[in-house]
Structure formats: C-alpha cells, structure tokens
C-alpha cells in the first residue's frame, strides 16, 4: 500500500498525463522505491489509479527489467557486460560481486545490458547511481561503502534517496 505521502504523489503523477494509463510506469517506480520491489498488491493498487486491471499492470511492468517482482534487498547492483564492458573487464566485476553477495539478501547483483557508460567502462550502477572505471576490487569497495552508509543510495527504482 502506498503511504499517505505517496498516495498524494501518485495522484499528482496521474494528473500529469492526459490518460491515467500512462502513469503505470512512474507509479510502479514509486511503489518499488517505497517497498523495495513491485508486489502483487502494489500492482493491484496501481491498477486502481490507472483505471485498469491488475493483470494489465502485471503484464506491462513485467516487460521492463527494472521492476523486480521479488524482494531484492536494499541495493540493486547492475553490472554491465555488454560489448564494451565485455572486453575491458565487465564480466570479471560481475563474477566477483555475484560471488561475494550470493547469500547477502540485502544486495541483489544482476547482469545488465549497456548502461550508456562505455566511455569509462567497465561500469555498474548501484540503485541506478553510476560507478565507472571499475575493477573487481573497486566495485566491491563501492558496494561496501553503500552497505556501511558511507555512500547514500537512491531508492531501488532509482528515485531520490
């Protein structure tokens, strides 16, 4: 359920569009930032705001890889392995982080497609904040910094921290 503040925000978002249905994506971001994932209940609630069915919201949101339909902790670590990162060490960063955080429920490490940060590859995002020029070690340090609160994370859907 949206908090009261987010309910207000949700109503404002819906008003930005000529048709409420357009607000599905932003409301899903809002819900995911709030809850850490996009739960079936959240999809149901979004359906009400957007004048559609929960099945429709589920169908729409599942198309987009950023929405997580399972709880995935407080940190979403997205490591690029696409064709530039591929040849300059992206896979190694991924492997290191996947291994390190395999059983850490607070950190969700995923392989992603090109993040548009190839100039300083290899790159990753932590809750959609960029980190570039990585080595496996520096990448791990960054995640640790977030965990320790030395770096402040955005919401898990990239909303402001």
């Amino acid at each position, binding site marked *: 359920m949206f908090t009261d503040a987010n309910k207000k925000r949700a109503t404002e978002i819906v008003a930005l569009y000529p048709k409420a249905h357009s607000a599905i994506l932003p409301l899903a971001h809002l819900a995911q930032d709030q809850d850490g994932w996009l739960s*079936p*209940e959240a*999809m*149901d609630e979004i359906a009400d705001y957007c004048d*559609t*069915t*929960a*099945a*429709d*919201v*589920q*169908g*729409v949101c*599942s*198309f987009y*890889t950023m929405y997580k339909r399972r709880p995935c902790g407080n940190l979403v670590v997205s490591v690029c392995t696409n064709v530039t990162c591929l040849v300059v060490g992206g896979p190694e960063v991924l492997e290191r982080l996947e291994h390190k955080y395999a059983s850490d429920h607070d950190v969700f490490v995923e392989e992603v497609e090109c993040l548009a940060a190839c100039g300083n590859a290899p790159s990753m995002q932590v809750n959609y904040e960029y980190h570039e020029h990585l080595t496996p070690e520096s990448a791990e340090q960054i995640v640790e910094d977030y965990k320790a609160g030395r770096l402040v994370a955005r919401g898990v859907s990239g909303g402001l921290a």
Partner: protein
Amino acid sequence: MINVTIDGKTVEANPGDLLIKVAQENGVYIPRFCWHDRMKPVGMCRMCLVEVEGIRGLPPACTMPVAEGMVCHTETPAVKQAQDDVLEFLLVNHPLDCPVCDRGGECPLQDTTLAFGPGESRFVEEKRHFEKPIPISDVVLLDRERCIQCARCTRFADEIAGDPLISFVDRGGHTQVLNHPDHPFASYFSGNVVQICPVGALTAKPYRFRARPWDLATVETSCGQCAVQCRGALQSSSNRLVRLLGVDSDAVNHGWLCDKGRYGFEYVHSDARVREPQLDGKTVSWPQALDAAADALRSARDLHGAESIAFLGGARGTNEDAYAIARLAKGVIGTDNVDSQLGDGLPAELILGVNRAAIADLDTAAAIVLLAPDLKEALPVLHLRLRRAALECNVPIIDFSSVPHGLTREVTHALAPLPGEQGKRAEQLVGALNGNAADAIVAAAAATIAGRSGNIVVVLGRSNLAERSDATVQAAAALAGLANVKFLSALRRGNVHGALEAGLAPGILPGRVTIEHRDAVQQVWRTAPEVPGLDAEGILRGAIDGTIKTLVLVGADPIADFPDRALAIEALNAVGTIIALDGFGNASNQRAKVMLPVTMFGEKSGTTTNLEGRMQRVNQKVSPEGIAMDDWRIASEIALRLGDDFDLELVDEITAEMIKVSPALAGATPALLASSHDGVRIPVREHATEIKVRKNNAGLLDGEGAVSWEPIKADVEAVDVELATHESADESADESAGEAGAAVIDSGETPSADKATITAPTAEASATVAPTAASVLLTWNRIAPSVSLPGRDAYAVRLVSGPALYDHGNAVNASASIVGLRGPSKLLVSAADLQRLGVTNGTEVHVASAKGAFNIAVHAARGITQGVAQLAMGGERGANALIDVGSSATDVRVETIQ
C-alpha cells in the same frame, strides 16, 4: 470497389479491406495464426507474409489494406521460404507432443505445418520450459510451453470481452500469457479464448481429454440459454454432448459464446433429469401419464370451464413446442390464460408490436438507448455486440440504468433515473429532442442524437424486476413516438420471443396477431379464444382466489422465477391440479399430479426465435435421456385424447402448420429455414432481402470435427429469395421435409433445388389469396399505464434487481462445470449508505421488506446512487424473496445484526 490481383487473378474488393481477407474470400488461403477476422490485426506471427509488387520485403497480408491496382503473390519461392522459416521458428519452443495434446487432430499449427511447413527442424538446443498446465480460472487451463504468442486470447479478453484479466507477461522469448495471481481469468467469455487458441495452450476443463476430434459428430444449432441464441456447432461422442463451439453468424454472435452457453449443456445428461413419466409421484408408462393428463384437463374444463385452466411457460423449448402448446391451450381447450413470461418480462403487445431492430442495427445506429438489465448478466453476447457498437463503430450509448453494469464504461450519457422514474426521464429526453430540455444531461444526450444520422435503437427490457414494468412501458411509449426509433428486445429467457410469436401470451395468437384476428388460425384450429385471458400474475392470483383450478407448467418454475416468490408459493399451494412438462423436478412442480419428461437442448430439432425475431434451426445431436418426449408431441397426444387430432408426425410438419397460420411468417418454408444461412427474421416478408441461402456448408460441419480455431463460417452465396405465399409454402414443405437433423447438413447439396422450391409459387397457389400480413400484424397502441411510486421511507433503500448469469436455474445447478462459478449473493449499496449503516464492507446485515427478510453480506459499489440497493434475483437470498409485485417499487430496510 477496386481491383486487386492475387496470384494472377484479378478480383474486386472494398478499398481498405485487409488483403488476407480479400484473398480468402476469393479462394486463396494465406496461412495465419494471429489474425482473426473479428479482432484488430496485430501482425505479429508473421505467418501471412506475401509479396506485393512495389513494396520492399515481405509485408504481412493481415495488416495490409488493399488498394486499387495492387498486385500480390502468395506462392512465390520467397513467400514459401518465409512460411517455412516462420513455422520452423514457431516449433523451436513448441513441444512436439501432438499425440497427447488436446488439440491434436484439430490443431492449426499441426495442420499449417503439414501444409506449409519445412520437413524437420534443425533446432538442437534446449527448448524453453514452463511448469505444465496451470489453471488460470476455474474452467481454463494454460500450458505455456505450447503457446505461440499470437495474442489472440489476450486481445479477445481486452478488445472483445472487456475483461483484460490475462495479458502477456515478461518479454521476448520468455513471453507468456498469465493472469494476476490474485485475480483469476473469471470472464463470462473465457471459453472463447480456448476456441480461438491456434494450439493446445488453452484448454477447457469441461472438455479436456473427453474426446478426440475424429470421434466427434457435429451439427449446427443455436444455443438456448438466452434469447440471443448464438449459433454453435454442437458435438457429441458416444451419444453424449461433449462440446459446443461458437459459429460465426454475422447477424448474431460473430462466433462468440458465453461460458454459460458453452458449458451449460451439461445439464442435459445430469442425474437430476426426469427420465420417465410420473403419476402422483410414481413412474408410469407414457399412455398412462398422457391419459391422466388429458383426463385432468377434460374434467377441469367440463366442471369449471376452460377459463379455470391456465398454462405457464413454454419459453424454453422450440417454436414448434410453443406452437403445439398454444394450439392445445387455445385451440383445443379454449383457454387464453396462457403466459410464457413469468412476470419478469414486458407485455407481449409491446414486444411484438413495436418497430423491431436487428442486432446488427446497433452498429449503424445514431444512438443506442439502453433501457435494459445488465446485459453482461442477462444477454452476454448481446453485451459484446453493444460493446462493439460503442467501441468499434463509435455509436453513443444513452443509458437509463440506475445502477452500474457491464457497459457503464462505454456509456456516453448516463441519464441515471431513480428506480421507477425511467418513464419520466424518457419523456424528458423526448422533450429535449423537441427542444425543451429539462436539464443539461438530457440536453447533451439529445444533442448527441440530433448530431448523427440513422436510427435510434432502444434496447428494451426490464432494467429492474423489483418494480412493476409500468415505468418501462411508459418510457417505451414516449420513445416509440420518435420518428426514427427501433426497439431491440432485451427479454432474456431462451425462446421467449419464439413463444410470444407462437401465441403463448394472453390475447395473442401465432404470427403476431391478436385474438381479434382469428381468421388465419381458424383455418386449422378447432376453436380460438375470444376474450383476452390472464397473464402470469393474474394466473397466480387466480390460483389463490380459486378461479384457476388447473395449472399446466411448461418448463416453468414460478417459485424460482416469478419476481414475487411469496405470491408464487401461495398460488402453487392453492391450485388444485398441476400438470408439468419438464426435464427437472423443482419447487413448483413437486406437487404435480402428472409429470411429463421432455427432451432438452441437443435432443430435439425444430426452430427457435431470438430477441431480434430471427428464426433459426436447432438440431438434434443425441437421443433423449430416458424416454423423454418433445413437448409438441406431448401436446398433440393430449389433444388427441381430448378429441382433436393435430395429424402432425414430423417437426417440419409443425413448422409448416405454424407458418400457415402465422401471418408474420408468410413466405417461410421449413426448407428455407433449413437452408438460409442466418435463418430468417420475422415478419419474414419485411426482411426478405436479408435472407441468404447456403451454398455449401458441407465442408465445415460434416461431422468430421469442425475446425474450431477460426470462426466457423458457412460458405454463403446470396440467392434472391422470392417468398412463397402461405399455400405454396405449405406444399413445398411437404416436398422437402426430411429428417430434421439432417436438413442443415444436407443443404450443401441442395441449393438449387431449394431455390426452386422457394421461388416457385405456382399460379394456382398465388391465386388463393392468403391473409396479407401487413393488414393484421400487431402494432402497439402506446398506451402507458400510469406510474405512481410509493413515498420514500427515509430509513429504507429502494431495490434494483436483475438476473445474474450464473443464476439458480437448471442449466447452472445441473452443470458441474459452471455451478461452482456462481458467487454468493450480495447486497450492493453506495459507500455513503454503507457508512450510514456503520458497517464495514462485506459484513452481514439484515434486510427486510413487506414480503420477506434474511441476512446477507453488504458491499459498497462504485456508481450506485445513495438510497438505492442492488441485489440479484434467485436463490435463498435473492431479491424475489423481498419483492412485492403489487407495489410499483420495493423498499427494503437494511439493519445491522447485533
């Protein structure tokens, strides 16, 4: 018309028609999976790629509108290669388990692969895997591995049904169809997705593994569950009905069925069926039962007069059944106390006597005026047609509902009268059309109507059974005064229109005439009533006051269906003798002296007439359960015992006699009815131009298992039909009357012969002057009863009630697949009223009216006006336990339970 060249053949087409369709209509089949004639093209399966000169690459024929001079090739090497490739791609992730798949043998993917596909797949990688079939609703299972992502099901649910409860989930190669975990695909139309799925991904629990397509025998027929009478292909295996598939009738259902129609036939084989005649509760032989029934009727007539006998029902069988019952009641016994409606309809003179619209008129209407119950519940496929008219044809809907319903979203102007005030509101609308608007809402509705050309189509039914029909009649009277208005009846019960056309209403004779015009009928009948008799309410009151002593229930259960249950119970307890013709025992006929078991859907042939007055063939598929008999035969046996020999042995002979005495049917013949593609609309002469005769239907419904994924459509050639007069119709019927069930199937071979019989009135025949239809056909006098509503009790809510699709009738109770779909009754009120009561959503409350009381859960619903409550009919906690038919509105008190 423009010219298009397809594979070297130049054909004519309408500009903008899709190439795939133009090709098909001209004998070129372009393979396809995602395209469906009744849905918008998506062009996603890419099976229909063709070459079009001047266009780069291979465009899909299903999204390509034809243009003048277009030259298209469907069989070039490039096209063949593309077809091979697409099939190979589809088989990449499709399991090759045809032998164990429910679709095996009637699978378009299988068939298309054989016809258009590559030899074998080179795919050696791992296939995609999903958990085996998962239920997505109580009746539909989904095997995602078999899905080929054509989006037919999801598009149907969204575009056609308006129930987007399934959708594509995930992306790319992982795309699957799914419902939301908390919301099953509980659509009244869910079975259609099973029918149109081109593979075995979607299966229906009721049919799964019940039969293999090659074991099935098929006839074409009409569904009898409601008055839309959708066309269907009825299939049996080992003398049991196993499946009903929708057949695409342009006029009626566009290939769709509702789930009640699709699965509800299970009641036919139910253990609860009455299979043998009974006398005083004991099984007897037919002669004993018929003798007893005849004796009872004879002595009642001799002792108390014909008016002491009444007939209720007759709307559940065929027209022939209804006609024979009418002849027995009115022409043999001589009583006019006959009603096929049970107080839940509208006066017969109104239904038969207004300018009638066809369903297809909805698409071209200037506006649709909705003065009807929730069509999604009452007449589901008519609901789909209205949705289509609104969404596809942009026809505005002007709504007179006082509670929300299935089409609320599609409504353009909601006039929102309070219960009982529809008449007043309609008068205001008419006033606004004449320049005196009472308020901005009617003014806007009138402006919408005025801004468009075409007819106003009023969909007319009982929007509220908790009030008398007077306000509706008043509204109809006001609207009927408009120049360009037509009425589409929204009466619900299966063949109620056929029953009314056959004369099963007080004051009415077969063929849309009143008893003043007895001439046609008296050429055949021994007698005919001279004074109008009682309607259902009058009959029940007569039973209570002792004037009605014998009641014949023809498939009728007034205790369940009459809006005022208390009155019905009192009447049935009071009446002296009950004779029942029924397939089931029920509360009303449990006291019957004689119980006569009748044949039901799929066990009999004949004709039925739908809500637009379309008369179509129904056909027998299985032999009757037990020794059940057709109603018409029972009627003629009883008549014989009462000294009147109908001399009718075959269904077609009844049809012919009915036509002979019915001015509204002038020109029809049994042969014409059997061979005309969409049946004929009544009055036949008026609509003769609509009649199209089948050219060849054999390929589709020849018993080999109909192809079920495409809309099954008869191949039709328009033949000019010159209508015969009464007499010649009769003659030709004799010639072509055959075994009824075979008529449709055989018609493939007989078009020219049919044409001859239809179009050749002999000189002598045309010389014998038949009653001219126009001179006697009923027109409604537009006299509206005055409506006086009781004053409002500030503590009460005013009740609005209509039927629910999954009601408490036999088709639901005795059909295992759907009885579980019926939800609990609930009382719906506005959020404000819920708050006033001080209870939370879903709490049980006590409701009480002058007639009854019970506890029931109350829920707030959006769109309900404060002071109004909604409760469906039927069942223990149905509105009929509260309604007082004596009052023009039903007010109920709602109290919290301490």
